[in-house]
């Protein structure tokens, strides 16, 4: 009955570096017939901290090449939000700053370039809408104003070509002269230039509509659609040689993939790692130990190393993981600290630069640089003095050049599988507390990974507060993940007050809109999803609005609406799917006329309320026509009822499991009937399923209740409160009887003549 288990400890919470002895690779446990794969990491890296700069954006740390990496360490260059560019390197075992620029506007990106065929040792820095070029010693050789209207958000340099992207615009310059431009119409997140045939270049763009576009010689771009938004593109490299056709890609849901650029300038996904995690912020390839490794930096502070698979059809194996506690802005592989020891150089959001080196920790202690520490101590003393002076001088006038403080790095991402949002908030200093306020009902869900003490305050709906929650953080917390669930049809605004621990205490307010159709996500025509569906309810709006106006209104109601409308023959099309229910919403709009189609009457009604509201605000008269399709209800019910069934079944099964446990009958399952044995075998899965979304059943019931309320509204303007609707629907929902439900939906008047409903409309 008692079994000894190999001691294994994986303490992920441990902020300090965790050294796992490099032994054994993979163990396969045969456990109740299931194969459980336990990976033991094969790489051991030790953290060494180098320096701290101001907070940094993604991709603003680069390693400069060196003629002979076997003899010499590499220098690194980093640009921060204060606009300071540092060039640093090891000299006599001590880190020295070789060059430091004056402060200025924040650095948005850094790219290395040089004459084709030589080493890439020229540094290109994107600041605002201009690009500055520095030599490896810090001499400015180029100052170039791109004339873009917006600040550069992504940049790439290849030989004489420089591409700069701002918002939804891609622009390429050849020898600082305009070469080509392309208005993508979607947010461009990253850009990569690859050499094409002859002197031609191929531009690869990571776009906000989940697509990777390939621009090649002025033709319409070829397009690869991913399931989520790509966040980073990185050419595969071996040492200094960058591949011309292999690109690593990272996504918002934490996947890493390898794309291959084919001869016809289309992209192919070679492999895509399926293990999700936090958003990928940085990627690189480098040979750390025995073969090429993929270095991955994530939004939640995790740095991972995967072995690059030698064959295309195998997926990479995790070799190392480290959590540094704050989001990683760059990871890059090279030789920095000591000759002969490859390492991962990482920069965090708050500007901490550290290496994860292959040099064994024993060797590190011996030659730990006392010099650097003494220097740092002196620096700290000087800072203290300066601070005290500053404290005493009361007459500090309002400084126009005062640095901006408390820049909150935040993002709110939808989790499609359980229809909720993850809000991550990060500060360059420690967070004291976070106050979350919402003017619309929002459910706050618990996040395992955060240790902040959450407290819901009583609030008065009259003063516009539906949620007032505080999160008091433990010491030295720079980032916090929150999970929340909005309610469709209840748009509003989240206001988040983030207070830092630094004295004098300040607090930054950020605002995040909640869309009315918050659980809709955009799908694209080219995706091979079934765009058929139906039958559709139709909403038709006519009035004196322009296509741009209605596009702008839609962006208030729906998430991921592109920056500007894509008009084909003056008509724009957007397609959405409800991530929770699975129904479709098609929007077709042009000047003066807009048509919206959806199987889900709730989506239509919500949209109608929002759009007519917006039109009224702008004093535009709208003619509203609403065509309801009777068959649409059974379509929605067809989608929801099986899930209600499944959710109930899980609840039921877990109840039985609980009972078995209570009576300790689970210890020897062979005495039980096969049904219960099966339950016990799947116990962990079933429980995990319930834990993932414990309110699933209630939410599904809610969907149907809303559907009924909206259906009544759309049909006859009859107002049914959701309470009466719940009462009315309960028996039918309990029995999960489609016929009974349809009878209720079709109303009393037609109850007698309701024929047996057709289950399949098409």
């Amino acid at each position: 009955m008692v079994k000894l288990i190999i001691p294994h400890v994986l303490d992920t919470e441990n902020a300090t570096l965790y050294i796992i002895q490099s032994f054994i690779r993979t163990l396969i446990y045969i456990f109740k017939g299931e194969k459980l794969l336990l990976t033991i990491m094969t790489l051991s890296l030790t953290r060494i901290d180098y320096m701290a700069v101001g907070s940094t954006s993604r991709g603003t740390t680069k390693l400069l090449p060196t003629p002979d990496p076997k003899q010499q360490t590499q220098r690194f260059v980093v640009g921060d939000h204060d606009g300071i560019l540092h060039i640093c390197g090891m000299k006599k075992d001590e880190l020295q700053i070789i060059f430091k620029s004056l402060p200025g506007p924040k650095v948005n990106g850094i790219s290395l370039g040089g004459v084709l065929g030589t080493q890439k040792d020229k540094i290109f820095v994107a600041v605002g809408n201009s690009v500055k070029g520095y030599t490896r010693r810090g001499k400015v050789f180029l100052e170039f104003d791109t004339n873009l209207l917006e600040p550069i958000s992504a940049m790439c340099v290849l030989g004489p070509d420089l591409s700069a992207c701002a918002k939804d615009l891609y622009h390429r310059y050849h020898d600082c002269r305009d070469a080509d431009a392309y208005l993508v119409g979607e947010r461009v997140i990253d850009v990569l230039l690859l050499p094409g045939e002859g002197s031609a270049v191929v531009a690869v763009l990571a776009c906000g509509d989940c697509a990777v576009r390939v621009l090649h010689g002025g033709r319409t771009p070829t397009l690869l659609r991913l399931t989520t938004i790509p966040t980073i593109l990185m050419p595969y490299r071996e040492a200094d040689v960058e591949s011309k056709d292999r690109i690593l890609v990272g996504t918002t849901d934490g996947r890493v993939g390898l794309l291959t650029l084919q001869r016809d300038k289309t992209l192919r996904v070679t492999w895509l790692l399926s293990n999700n995690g936090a958003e990928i912020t940085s990627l690189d390839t480098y040979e750390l130990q025995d073969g090429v490794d993929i270095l991955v930096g994530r939004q939640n502070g995790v740095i991972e190393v995967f072995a690059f698979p030698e064959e295309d059809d195998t997926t990479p194996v995790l070799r190392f993981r480290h959590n540094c506690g704050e989001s990683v802005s760059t990871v890059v592989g090279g030789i920095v600290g000591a000759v002969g020891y490859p390492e991962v150089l990482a920069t965090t959001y708050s500007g901490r630069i550290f290496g994860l080196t292959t040099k064994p920790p024993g060797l590190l202690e011996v030659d730990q640089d006392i010099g650097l520490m003494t220097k740092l101590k002196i620096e700290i003393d000087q800072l203290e003095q300066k601070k005290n002076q500053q404290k005493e001088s009361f007459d500090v006038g309002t400084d126009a050049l005062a640095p901006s403080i408390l820049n909150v790095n935040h993002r709110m991402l939808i989790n499609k599988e359980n229809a909720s949002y993850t809000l991550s908030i990060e500060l360059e200093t420690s967070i004291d507390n976070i106050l979350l306020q919402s003017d619309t009902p929002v459910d706050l869900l618990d996040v395992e990974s955060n240790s902040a003490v959450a407290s819901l305050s009583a609030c008065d709906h009259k003063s516009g507060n539906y949620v007032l929650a505080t999160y008091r953080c433990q010491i030295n917390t720079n980032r916090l993940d929150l999970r929340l669930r909005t309610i469709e049809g209840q748009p509003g605004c989240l206001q988040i007050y983030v207070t830092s621990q630094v004295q004098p205490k300040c607090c930054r307010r950020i605002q995040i809109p909640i869309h009315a159709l918050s659980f809709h996500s955009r799908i694209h025509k080219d995706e091979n999803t079934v765009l058929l569906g139906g039958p559709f309810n139709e909403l038709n709006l006519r009035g004196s609005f322009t296509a741009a106006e209605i596009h702008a209104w839609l962006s208030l109601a729906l998430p991921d609406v592109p920056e500007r409308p894509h008009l084909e023959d003056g008509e724009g099309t957007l397609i959405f799917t409800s991530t929770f229910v699975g129904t479709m919403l098609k929007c077709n709009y042009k000047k003066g006329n807009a048509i919206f189609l959806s199987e889900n009457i709730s989506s239509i009604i919500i949209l109608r309320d929002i759009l007519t509201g917006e039109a009224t605000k702008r004093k535009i008269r709208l003619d509203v026509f609403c065509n309801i399709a009777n068959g649409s209800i059974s379509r929605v019910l067809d989608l929801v009822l099986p899930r209600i069934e499944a959710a109930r079944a899980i609840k039921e099964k877990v109840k039985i499991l609980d009972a078995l446990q209570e009576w300790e009958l689970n210890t020897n399952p062979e005495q039980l009937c096969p049904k219960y044995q099966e339950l016990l075998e799947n116990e962990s899965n079933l429980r995990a399923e319930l834990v993932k979304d414990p309110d699933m059943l209630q939410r599904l019931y809610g969907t149907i209740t809303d559907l009924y309320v909206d259906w009544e509204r759309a049909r006859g303007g009859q107002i049914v409160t959701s309470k009466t609707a719940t009462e009315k629907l309960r028996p039918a929902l309990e029995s999960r009887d489609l016929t009974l439900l349809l009878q209720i939906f079709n109303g009393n008047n037609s109850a007698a003549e309701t024929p047996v409903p057709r289950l399949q409309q098409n």
Partner: protein
Amino acid sequence: MAAFSLQLERKVESGLVACGKFDGSHACIVVATSGGNILVHSPHRRPLPNPDDDPKTGRLAWTGELAELRIGKQVTSLYAGRLGEDERDVLMIGTATHLLVYNVEDNADVFYKEMSDGAYTVTVGKLGWLTDRSVVVIGGNCSVTVLDASGTEVFWTVTGDVVVSLMIFDFDGDGANELILGSVDFEIRALKGDSVAWDVKETAPVTALVALSGCQFGYAVGNGTVGVYEMGQRLWRVKSKHRVVAIRGYDVNGDGTEELVTGWSSGKVDARVPATGEVVFRVQLSAAVVGIARADYRRTGRPDLVVVSATGEVRGFGPGAASSEASEPGDKMRELLAKKQALIAEMRHRAANPGSFASRLAVEVSCGDGAVRMALAAGPGLLVHCAIVFAEGVFDGETLVDRPSRPCGQIEIELRPPKDTPVDVHVKVCVGPMGADLLQVFELTRQLPRFCMYERIEKPIDVEDALLDESGVTIEVAERPQRVAIWLGQNLILPEETEVEVAEVGPTAGTLNVCLRGLRDGKLHRLEATSGGKIRLRTNDSNFAGEVVQSLASYLGLGELGAEANFPEDEKLMTEALERLTGLRETEIRLRAGEARGAAMLRNLLVRTEDARILGDAKNAKTRLAQLRAVNGDLIRDHEIGANSYRDLVRTLKELNAAVQRIARLRVGKASANAIAKCRSAIRDGDTRALVAVARQG
């Protein structure tokens, strides 16, 4: 890191883990599993040479290293310790009704005793004020019972609520052990015989107490807070969103002093330095921690730290488990860099906030309209965007946020502390101009006085008669009314520039006469102190009266104080409860007998049904089955009635204990202890008259 790890393959109930040397030398782990089972794991048990010698008669059934003990009732507490001269540990198992003290080695009961208040926590040790025998201390429903090694009651006292944690510990370093108890009403008390040596209100039910070295002890409360007290002073506390399941003292880093090891519901185990709270050791388990024990599980001669998780995983850590990861290379460097970053950030904040020197925040605390009101005004030219009030035990969570829909110059926050204890409030106010995204944060800390929810009012003429009724309490203190006035002034929120004054002229010269109105219920109370040192509180709220007496006694440094009290409503309730109790006890006995009869019948029928089945007598089997069903139905019904009456019984007992506690709180020291003892005997005898007499005269 882990010295050993094994799997019990059973789900273990939270908090019910103990360790004992039942044969006097080999450590065993005892856990409670669901359904009222106790599991003893003894890895070093010598199997008996002849299996037939194994006594089958006892409650324990051994299978290899494991033994099972079926209690059949929800186990509420588990403890293993030495009782009497025997060097073998005995196992103590508490349920809602009984305490079983069991000798595992002999496989026999030491004693089995009914505990009508339940046994929610059990501990064993030597109490300073009793003889030097070790005794069993049991915490129950509003009461603490002390039994000697044979199960005879030697001490009994009441508490404000259910006692959920106990510790025998030399609290003040005088060489004699005190009894420290933690209860559901947030209180930690140190009992020294009849008197309360020290007490403090925490922020949630006190779920665990553990003795550390010196006069330090660790505590944990239900809202995820863990901390350390030394000589009545809290050294530190930390709060997490997870729940603390168990705390234990253990020298994890091998420095010679014990650290406070905490097991969390998240599966985390950490060890903190008792003096500072600094974390020196941390490990994560795959499931919630259910218990921590110290046991020499590897027979190394020194105890290991043994952690048990909800899934039955047992993990052991040797002494000095933390030292291996103590200091890494580069730790220093990281610290320095962090310091530099913090300094730079602070300088930036100052540079960006030049106006912060000029702006001020005005604060005013007053009371009225049913709440304590805290008015905050920002100036000059700044508006309050929002204010967060942090306070423990005042709100549902730990915060109250006031965020006006538009930033405004002044806001008023209403606070309603539910209990008469001093409350520390910490307020953060975000202030800035209209539409600003970067706001200044003002922080202020205030302590609300104990009786902040009572407003001083002018003596209303029309309610004079109502106040003249005789309910209230009268105490005699040899103090001038002026000192009472100072005490009142410290414990009330008074309008600016007013004080509680003793009249100097007129007919009431030399007496103090104060009218108070409760903000929670609007009830009126009146306090009179004469120059003769007689203090009379006219009120019909005996809880309030108790708080006043206790607070006043501790302010005046009185160790002994008797009182005359008159609370007719309380007396009525008490009398009713006692009468009800007698009835309920009889019902209970009757139902028990019925249950036993039913069970016997059931057994009989089962055998007959089985017989019929084997004989293939379908007809007979059918009738038997029908009978069986009928008996079963009866039994279930009886059980429901029984359960209801039992719930009533427990509630009544709790009510009575709470009433005794109220009576005791009106007195201090010996008078209080005497009152408790008299009440106890009055309740035992069912003598309502005696009970009322105690309530009045003490």
